[in-house]
């Protein structure tokens, strides 16, 4: 019974597909899964916009939207109707073809990433041998759409925003890839299904998630930083900083195309949080051994929602980083720590089981963090912290 609840979507799919003749069943199964993904994630996006506006509002000591439904729940419907009925303005000097294609390319490449995420036991769309590589290949293609949007608008602010966004994305792409390579080294495979299965074991009730190892924690933190930067979220949202660049690379977009950019950004956040939880947080596996009766897809989407809440929390709390600060951070701190992490995970496997490897790996990582941090701060001459009050 528990097993059937766990596999309920797979069983539903097989039942639906069973109505068709034999040779069409495989293709129909894929079509059903694709339709579900394309329907589910925009629905989650709608929920997340309300969550974000209410959450950021509460952090900033104000209520969020509260007019449209009870507690503002129906706000996404209002937003959807608004964006669909707004006039679609294309500037006269804009490059019409590229201007039209940019949001389409973004949404297509972002949705392709979901093809390899295992959303539950046996619930992956395509079990590719090189699944992680496919995901990063799709992620790399999103940068091109950002550039297309900024350049085709023939607007200095858009171009500036696009250049900043692309520079930021390629810098943090390296950090994202390197912090994921440690997981590949530990699991021995690029297939996301195998990575989750490698983490699905329990010792004394606690899971073997990679975040509970020293290199896994370091990798997860760097992955989280790089993921925040890849999706242009605060504190790395200078490319779309409202107070700086109007709206950055999507200044000249209105109506449905702007909604597509917005959708693309949030769905990219879902996608990258899903990958992060697959790589470091055990994907669909339960946190404690006695909780395995809860269906696997509940754990996956629960971790996804927790990641979204952390993203929203970061947005409300941290100030924005300047362009040179974030580039410095990427190349001078995150990248050396990622390279050191590769060495540490090799050492972890080399030393073998026991307490020694925990001690050695944690010591190396903590010393490196403290050392690089000290060395980076020593050049800044910061005075004592002072406060100014309003009286």
């Amino acid at each position, binding site marked *: 019974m528990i097993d059937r609840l766990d596999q309920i979507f797979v069983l539903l799919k097989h039942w639906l597909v069973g109505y068709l003749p034999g040779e069409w069943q495989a293709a129909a199964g894929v079509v059903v899964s694709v339709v579900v993904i394309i329907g589910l994630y925009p629905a989650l996006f709608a929920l997340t916009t309300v969550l974000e506006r209410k959450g950021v509002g509460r952090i900033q000591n104000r209520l969020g939207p509260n007019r449209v439904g009870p507690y503002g729940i129906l706000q996404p419907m209002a937003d959807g109707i608004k964006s669909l009925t707004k006039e679609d303005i294309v500037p006269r000097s804009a*490059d019409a073809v*590229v201007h039209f294609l940019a949001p389409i390319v973004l949404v297509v490449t972002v949705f392709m990433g979901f093809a390899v995420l295992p959303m539950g036991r046996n619930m992956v769309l395509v079990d*590719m*041998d*090189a699944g992680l*590589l*496919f995901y*990063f*290949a*799709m*992620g*790399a*293609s999103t*940068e*091109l759409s950002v*550039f*297309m949007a900024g*350049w085709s608008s023939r607007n200095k602010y858009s*171009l500036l925003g696009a*250049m900043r966004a*692309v520079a930021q994305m*390629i810098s943090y*792409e390296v950090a994202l890839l390197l912090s994921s390579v440690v997981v590949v080294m530990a699991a*021995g*495979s*690029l*297939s996301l299904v195998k990575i989750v299965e490698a983490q699905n074991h329990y010792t004394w009730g606690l899971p073997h998630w990679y975040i509970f190892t020293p290199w896994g924690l370091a990798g997860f933190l760097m992955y989280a930083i790089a993921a925040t930067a890849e999706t242009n979220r605060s504190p790395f949202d200078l490319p779309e900083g409202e107070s700086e660049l109007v709206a950055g690379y999507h200044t000249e977009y209105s109506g449905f195309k702007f909604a597509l950019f917005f959708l693309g950004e949030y769905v990219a956040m879902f996608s990258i949080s899903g990958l992060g939880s697959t790589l470091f947080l055990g994907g669909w596996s339960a946190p404690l051994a006695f909780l395995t009766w809860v269906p696997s897809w509940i754990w996956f989407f629960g971790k996804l929602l927790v990641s979204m809440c952390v993203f929203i929390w970061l947005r409300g709390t941290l100030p924005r980083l300047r362009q040179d600060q974030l580039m410095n951070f990427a190349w001078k701190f995150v990248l050396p720590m990622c390279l050191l992490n590769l060495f540490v995970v090799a050492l972890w496997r080399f030393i073998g089981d026991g307490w020694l490897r925990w001690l050695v790996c944690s010591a190396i990582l903590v010393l490196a963090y403290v050392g690089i941090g000290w060395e980076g701060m020593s050049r800044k001459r910061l005075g004592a912290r002072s406060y100014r009050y309003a009286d």
Partner: protein
Amino acid sequence: MGIAFYIISALTVCGGLAAVLLKNTVHCALALTVAFAGLALLFLRLDAQFAGFAQILVYIGAVAILVVFAILLTRGSDTPKDGVFSKTWLAGLAIAAAVFSVLGWAVLQAAPWLPHETVAPNVTVNQIGEALMGRYVLPLEIVAVLLTAALVGAVIVAMHEKEGAK
């Protein structure tokens, strides 16, 4: 031949043609990206998944963006006054046509003797990793040194020269 092969080949060839014929340089770079994507799809058809994904990641994710940045940094988006083709364009076109005819003739002559499709090789990433660390470790290390040298060289070549006061 499968219909998919025709469609992907048409996409690639049109992308290549657009990349060399269009007036606006940024449009050429974007058409080049389409050609790269078409080639990646052809690699996937040939069961070389790793090469296909690496092609997308490296070429579309890095080289195309590099080309675009270079175009923007050198004001390539302004169309030159005397047209975009050089004065000796006819000679270049003739040479390219000659090369294509020689290659095409060679392929068509040899067509009856070319091997037919074998069973799809099941190449796992595991095997690629073992090959890279086993048989091909020397090329791997040399490519690593080459990439480091290219990285340092490109930075130095493109760096602003500090000549006295700015």
